[in-house]
């Protein structure tokens, strides 16, 4: 969909901002350009819509060389989102979103309907209320949503985003990222996204292109970037906690070990003790007759005689199969037993995550990213 | 025309010099008064609880500034005449220029006094300074650059306006221009204009330098930023 062939940018004055970068971005792929400031990522992005002219090399969008198109036509086909300040303060939300449709000559009614739909897609509802407002009447997070809606205005196949969530507080940023992922799942645009934030890159990108001093250092899926950094620079950039970061990329269901051993509330304590001995465990999850998870039984409380049901340690937290491992880890630290029971929607016990499971996971480099989706 | 202007200035430097002195006297007198009045009034209206008054005073000063000089001279002459005072020459011109100079100084003083960093004030209070001490030792020194900037603006503006004062007998460089117009002598008009412009530019530069000097050393760097 987008192909950069040996792209080089030398600014007047001789600064080599981008140096011989080749990159292929597939249709529907979310590509993150990542790197420290001054690494050339923004310049690379701006060369795609010709805000910055190429010095050497070629860029193809679809199957056309970008230089074969009229520059305004090229840009009208490509959505462009920057930080919220890029909104036009003198135009309403509706007018801002309808800029490219208007440039393309859409009739007014169609423009209005499109703006309305986009606001709903981005969760700015009631949309009619927002259409009439001016950017000054919105919060930072709302303005940023409008910025994304504007980039989607004429339904372009490609979206270029230059640190679009950069100027927003961390909590709102996290929420916008989640929402954008949800929207991207729906609309499947080809996205090129610039950021200097490694967390954002790992969270959003299908593949991450890490740049340094104008060169492409590594272009790989996030998991591979974390587990097999190409060199010391990448290792340093992804950080010493890269194992922790990689947890985010795996879902609980991939490691949880199905149908774990359990005690029943009707079992005798004697039987429970025997089971623990046999399994070499000090703690077992407890389920009732419908297999609903009710709590824990441990060696320290399972003394004397009687039934398990009378000694159950109530649970504090629960996990779900779709949860990423980093969240599971956080919950485990709050759990009374240091383990996390994984339950389905009917709260039936379906799995168990222990520290051993996690150790095993982070020591073994993950092969190609897990097939199952990580749901937030 | 340019060469005759130079020749005129060369031949009549003593006379022109005297006009420059007259001109400066008017401007300095008026702006001196404007600084004193502006500071006093500014400190008065910048007190907390007087926001409404401050707004009114500044608004009125703003209106005064829009009144054309010739009209203001005329109105002041009529008022002075009605009071039985000298209604021609230096007096109405100096009063008019004082009024014009008031707004920039007043506005800058008020804004600067109001915008002292609350943390700075709290620190002063915490060290046991009284409100009066806080005003004179902290807020006023910190406001000096703004007041100077207002004065500079007022001065430059008044140098030009003072030229018209010659018409009602206040003297100064305006005389040169009026004589030039009356006798269709472009060289006189240009000589007058040149001197007025040079005076304005010179005062602007000099006051700019003074402004930097008057800025307390500690906040100089910050101000430059």
């Amino acid at each position: 969909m987008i192909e950069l062939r040996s792209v080089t940018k030398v600014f007047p004055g001789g600064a080599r901002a981008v140096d011989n970068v080749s990159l292929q971005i597939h249709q529907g792929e979310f590509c993150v350009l990542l790197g420290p400031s001054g690494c050339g990522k923004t310049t690379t992005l701006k060369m795609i819509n010709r805000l910055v002219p190429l010095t050497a090399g070629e860029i193809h969008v679809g199957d056309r060389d970008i230089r074969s198109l009229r520059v305004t036509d090229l840009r009208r086909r490509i959505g462009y989102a920057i930080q919220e300040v890029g909104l036009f303060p003198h135009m309403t939300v509706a007018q801002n979103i309808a800029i490219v449709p208007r440039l393309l000559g859409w009739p007014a009614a169609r423009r209005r309907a499109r703006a309305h739909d986009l606001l709903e897609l981005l969760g700015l509802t009631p949309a009619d209320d927002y259409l009439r407002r001016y950017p000054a009447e919105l919060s930072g997070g709302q303005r940023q949503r409008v910025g994304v809606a504007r980039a989607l205005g004429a339904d372009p196949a490609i979206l270029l985003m230059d640190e679009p969530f950069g100027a927003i507080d961390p909590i709102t940023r996290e929420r916008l990222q989640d929402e954008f992922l949800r929207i991207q799942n729906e609309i499947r645009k080809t996205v090129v996204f610039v950021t200097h934030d490694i967390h954002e890159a790992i969270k959003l990108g299908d593949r991450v292109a890490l740049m340094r001093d104008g060169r492409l250092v590594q272009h790989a899926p996030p998991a591979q970037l974390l587990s097999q950094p190409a060199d010391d620079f990448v290792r340093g950039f992804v950080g010493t906690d890269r194992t922790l970061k990689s947890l985010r990329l795996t879902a609980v269901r991939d490691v949880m070990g199905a149908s774990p051993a359990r005690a029943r509330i009707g079992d005798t304590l004697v039987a429970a003790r025997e089971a623990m001995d046999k399994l070499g465990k000090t703690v077992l999850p407890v389920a009732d007759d419908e297999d609903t998870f009710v709590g824990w039984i441990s060696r320290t409380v399972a003394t004397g005689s009687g039934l398990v049901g009378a000694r159950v340690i109530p649970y504090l937290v629960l996990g779900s199969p779709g949860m990423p491992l980093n969240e599971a880890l956080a919950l485990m630290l709050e759990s009374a037993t240091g383990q996390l029971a994984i339950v389905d929607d009917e709260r039936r016990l379906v799995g168990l995550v222990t520290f051993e499971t996690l150790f095993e996971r982070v020591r073994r480099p993950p092969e190609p990213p897990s097939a199952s989706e990580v749901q937030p | 025309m340019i060469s005759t202007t130079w020749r005129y200035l060369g031949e009549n430097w003593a006379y022109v010099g005297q006009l420059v002195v007259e001109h400066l006297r008017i401007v300095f007198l008026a702006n001196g008064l404007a600084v004193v009045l502006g500071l006093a009034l500014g400190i008065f209206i910048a007190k907390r609880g007087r926001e409404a008054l401050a707004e009114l005073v500044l608004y009125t000063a703003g209106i005064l500034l829009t009144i054309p000089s010739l009209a203001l001279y005329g109105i002041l002459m009529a008022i002075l005449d009605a009071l039985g005072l000298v209604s021609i020459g230096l007096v109405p011109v100096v009063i008019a220029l004082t009024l014009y100079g008031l707004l920039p100084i007043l506005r800058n003083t008020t804004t600067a006094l109001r915008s002292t960093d609350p943390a700075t004030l709290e620190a002063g209070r915490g060290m046991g300074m009284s409100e009066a001490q806080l005003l004179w030792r902290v807020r006023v020194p910190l406001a000096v650059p703004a007041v100077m900037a207002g004065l500079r603006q007022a001065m430059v503006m008044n140098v030009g306006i003072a030229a018209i004062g010659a018409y009602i007998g206040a003297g100064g460089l305006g005389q040169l221009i009026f004589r030039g117009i009356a006798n269709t002598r472009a060289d006189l008009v240009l000589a007058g204009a040149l001197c007025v412009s040079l005076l304005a530019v010179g005062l602007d530069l000099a006051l700019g330098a003074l402004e930097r000097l008057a800025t307390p050393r500690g906040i100089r760097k910050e101000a430059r930023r």
Partner: protein
Amino acid sequence: MRRNLILVVLLLGLASVTAWVTHIGRVGFFMMAPPEKLLAALREHVEIVLVAEAIAIAVGIPLGLLLSRRSFSRGAPILSAITSVGQTVPTLALVGVFSIMLGLGLRSAIVALAVYTVLPIVRNTYAGLTSVDARVREAARGMGMSPAQTLWRVEFPLAVPLIMAGIRTSTVLNVGSAAVAGMIGAGGLGEIIMTGVSLRLVEMILQGAAPTAALAILLDRLLETIGTRATPRGLRLALRRELAER
């Protein structure tokens, strides 16, 4: 509310002073200007100001626009030098020079005023257009606006407040300059003031001065209102928000 009160009292005061001195009719030997002559002078005065202003706008805005384009950016420092020095030249001198070059009368006055007014309008247009946030401009280009579309749909609307401020200040200054032009036979209220000064007749000075002052104040308020109205609503909200956040 109290602001409007001040304004109304002031304007009413000036108007009644004017009416009163006109009503006197004569002081000693001297006839005051009769009402119809006063009104004619007022009309002339407004005409001088408006015509000069219109010429200055017609020349100044395109010039400022041109200078703000990147290919002319080398002209910018020259412009700022010319305007800052130009502002120090008294209008009186400009009126004088043009009266000598083009002869006494209305035409010289208008030319002098227009020349003087062009400077602030060029400067404000230039400042307004170049102060548009670079990121906003880039967003416009990045979405596929042509340079002309960027100028008319984005940059120009955002420059309106500064351009209008330039027009307002220069118009008010021109009311004064037009009064000075009375001395080169351009007519207007200045002539009445000048006659009064040469006759040492305070009443007649007032007859010209009071309506001149009222005209300046009125135009200032009027143009402020127009300036606010002409500013796009969203921009007004943004400016207000910026002010509140400071």
